[in-house]
């Protein structure tokens, strides 16, 4: 894992792609593959390019399991698993990856821990061998651990001037107050140095277990070849013991406005509300409602009002985020400090409008046709497809979930939208967080220090 620090902004806007071959009735032709030792994977075969992507997730093995004392532990684990494994030192391992143009990386989510592999077919065996080593026998040697620690410390110090990063720190602390989600999954300047190789070993042994594993694979590989590789990579993982259960929470501090004063020309604003779980019967309605309100970018109501009509912002978006223990809807934007109050008033007015007046037939039809039509565009590269396959399993979705998507979206009615808007968009439930020097707001709570940084 090489962490690159630089302040030259790199703007990459694009999504790659892939998809359907033989079976034209299905969005993706997903096969369930079960190896001899019982490892299960969802596979989409695609032999049009010599590329294979693998995404694997250990459910419930995320940063939620960290203590405040050692926040950042799982991030550090994700940085060090590819820094030496088995007989290979960190540099030998990285050289083997580089020399074979293999991308292997790990990532620490709040709920889950994941790994991603992308390789050319001709290096398939080497790629799976290195993945096996990293997953089963990471070394956590002193040198790479210290190096990754320093890189993370530098990352935090570099981010401390970034208003969006500051806003994210406040967001976690305020919205998830009292819950493990409130911690900084990237660690703090004081917590990271406390994390030892034994801590990493202990977490690795306890949480990266076979009972938590889901696997998605796409590309130039057959089911039979995959079965052998699945056993090879994951077949030796142990079954896990039960771990701590966590409580569900609602977003905290409803009705409050928090301001972290910073001398910048814009106010960075977020408005958060409680939403529903992904298995709620209204989840698909929520998606459509969100698209109309602010999820769609250009053409969404918030973008029309705030950007197109008034020129108040470069962008305003709404979205939902669903964790195992909390579900939120969030509106994010930035505007010059003088317009902060006007912007918040617009957000409230649009919430009220979609709650009290039915959306038009055309608006609903346009939202449906976008959501259905754009589904394929989210599957245009092997790694994207592998990632979707793993997420579907992590969310306990059925294997035909994508095929049902069109029907579910088409079933949404105007009344459904209004009902769900009433359920979610209640202004007394809003928690507002602002970084900048907003003008015209009253009754705000000033935040003077940043939580979970030092």
């Amino acid at each position, binding site marked *: 894992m090489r962490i690159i620090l630089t302040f030259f902004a790199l703007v990459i806007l694009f999504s790659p792609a892939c998809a359907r071959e033989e079976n034209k009735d299905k969005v993706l032709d997903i096969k369930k593959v079960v190896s001899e030792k019982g490892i299960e994977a969802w596979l989409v075969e*695609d032999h049009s390019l010599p590329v294979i992507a693998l995404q694997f997730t250990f459910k419930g093995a995320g940063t939620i399991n960290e203590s405040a004392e050692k926040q950042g532990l799982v991030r550090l684990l994700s940085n060090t698993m590819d820094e030496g494994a088995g007989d290979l030192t960190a540099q030998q391992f990285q050289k083997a990856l580089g020399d074979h143009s293999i991308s292997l990386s790990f990532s620490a989510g709040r709920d889950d821990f994941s790994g991603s592999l992308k390789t050319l077919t001709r290096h398939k065996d080497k790629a799976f061998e290195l993945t096996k080593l990293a997953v089963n026998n990471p070394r956590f040697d002193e040198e790479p651990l210290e190096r990754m620690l320093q*890189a993370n410390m530098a990352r935090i110090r570099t981010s401390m001037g970034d208003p969006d990063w500051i806003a994210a720190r406040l967001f976690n602390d305020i919205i998830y107050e009292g819950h493990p989600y409130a911690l900084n999954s990237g660690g703090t300047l004081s917590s990271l140095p406390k994390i030892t190789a034994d801590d990493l070993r202990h977490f690795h042994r306890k949480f990266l277990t076979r009972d938590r594993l889901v696997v998605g694979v796409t590309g130039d590989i057959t089911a039979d070849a995959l079965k052998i590789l699945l056993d090879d990579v994951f077949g030796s993982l142990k079954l896990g013991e039960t771990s701590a259960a966590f409580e569900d929470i609602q977003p905290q501090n409803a009705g409050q406005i928090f301001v972290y004063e910073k001398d910048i020309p814009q106010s960075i604003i977020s408005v958060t509300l409680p939403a529903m779980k992904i298995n709620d019967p209204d989840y698909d309605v929520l998606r459509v409602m969100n698209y109309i309100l602010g999820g769609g970018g250009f053409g969404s109501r918030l973008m029309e009002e705030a950007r197109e009509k008034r020129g108040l912002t470069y962008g305003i978006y709404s979205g939902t985020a669903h964790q195992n223990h909390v579900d939120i809807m969030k509106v994010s934007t930035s505007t010059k400090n003088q317009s902060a109050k006007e912007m918040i008033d617009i957000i409230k007015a649009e919430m009220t409008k979609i709650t009290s007046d039915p959306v038009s037939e055309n608006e609903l039809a346009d939202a449906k046709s976008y959501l259905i039509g754009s589904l*394929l565009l989210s599957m245009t590269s092997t790694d994207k497809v592998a990632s979707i396959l793993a997420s579907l399993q992590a969310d306990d979705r059925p294997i035909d979930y994508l095929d049902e998507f069109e029907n579910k979206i088409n079933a949404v009615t105007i009344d459904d939208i209004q009902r769900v808007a009433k359920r979610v968009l209640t202004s007394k439930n809003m928690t507002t967080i602002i970084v900048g020097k907003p003008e015209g707001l009253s009754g705000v709570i000033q935040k003077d220090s940043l939580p979970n940084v030092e």
Partner: protein
Amino acid sequence: MTFAALPANAKVFNAETFTLENGLQVIVVPNHRAPVVTHMAWYKVGAVDEPQGLSGMAHYLEHLLFKGTKTLAPGEFSRIVKRLGGNDNAFTGQDYTAYFQSIAKQHLPEMMRMEADRMVNLQVPPEHFKSEKKVVLEERRQRTENDPKGLFGEQMRSALFANHAYGTPVIGWMHEIKEYEWDDIQKFYNSWYAPNNAIVIISGDVTADEVRPMAEASYGQIEPKELPKRLNSKVPPAIGKTLMTLSHETIHQPVWQNIRLAPSYGQNRQDSLALQVLEEIMSGSATTRLYQNLVVDQKRAISVGLSYSGSARYTGVITLYGSPAQGVTLEELAADVQAQIKAVIKDGVTQDEIKDAVQRLQDSADYARDSLSGPAMTIGFNMLTGSTLDDIENWPDDIAGVTAEDVKRVAALYLDDDNPWRRVSVTGHLLPISEKEEMKADNKEAKNEGVE
């Protein structure tokens, strides 16, 4: 060129191309994995072509292309794309302005018709011209002014590209964006937006045979224009060292940066290819020279790198950067990096390094096709910054032609601080306030070595 792809002698994309009578070039990259396409229109005009004093106009015009034509209302373009299940956007650089949609393939004729329409029929209601100006000012605040490091980066480029439009940021200076009027923009649009100043690229589930009639029915109906003469002011030599320092309360991690001129691909193809291999050898992975030596072995830096950007209509840039380890000053880190370069200048690189670097670069070309929009992006970007389509298709073979001797030679020519190419590089220091004060203390009491 920046991307990666294929067995030896294979073309990277196997693109097909034809040119309409009005001069518009069309390129098609067939990719039949899914029934979708990405359609891009690239104009050979960007920020570099703006008249002095009107910076940011090319980018502002890009915004206005979503604000209506003689037959489409403001915002309608994107609404139609969305309704058809597609995504659209646009972007502006120094050398180009590009517009694109990704969408189900049956909608391609409609996309081409709409894109051709706004090539010549732009009509923006005055109130939208005004409100969009505010949007661009907010964009500049968000991208640049919210973080002093953004302003500092602009200042560094200004110093390097003295007397050249590359020294002006693409988004424009705040005070100039506020000034220009619709007439200025319209003149710019009328001058540069023409079929003979554009390339249309389509990647996805189509062939050139299918695309040709669609292109003739849409873009083919537009008359070519006589294009304005392009100005190319040259960057003069500079003999003094430029060191810029920013100490700011928002900076907590010291950073060293150094930028210098280098030839672009169009200016010097051979040297540009060699610089790409040098970049890969110095900075291509966690086990290449800079990271291996300075971060892993010597513990002098936390991060370090070399980046060569040779895709430019005019001159390219090499950027060196790093964050020092505790106890190492930015000056010391600069010397360490220069020592790494001197080692290449003196002893060259090994055959193994060349072989590994070339292999990684060629492999990246294999991955380049694993994307819908990626091939259209790569081809457009490189064709508007000095490459031909053949250059792009044959890039893996050309890269393989670079020798150890080439790499050694370009390191000496373009990266030797004692013998700079054209002008001395520009160095930037980002420092926390406390370190600056400590440095002052150091200077005042030079003998007080207890101050860290």
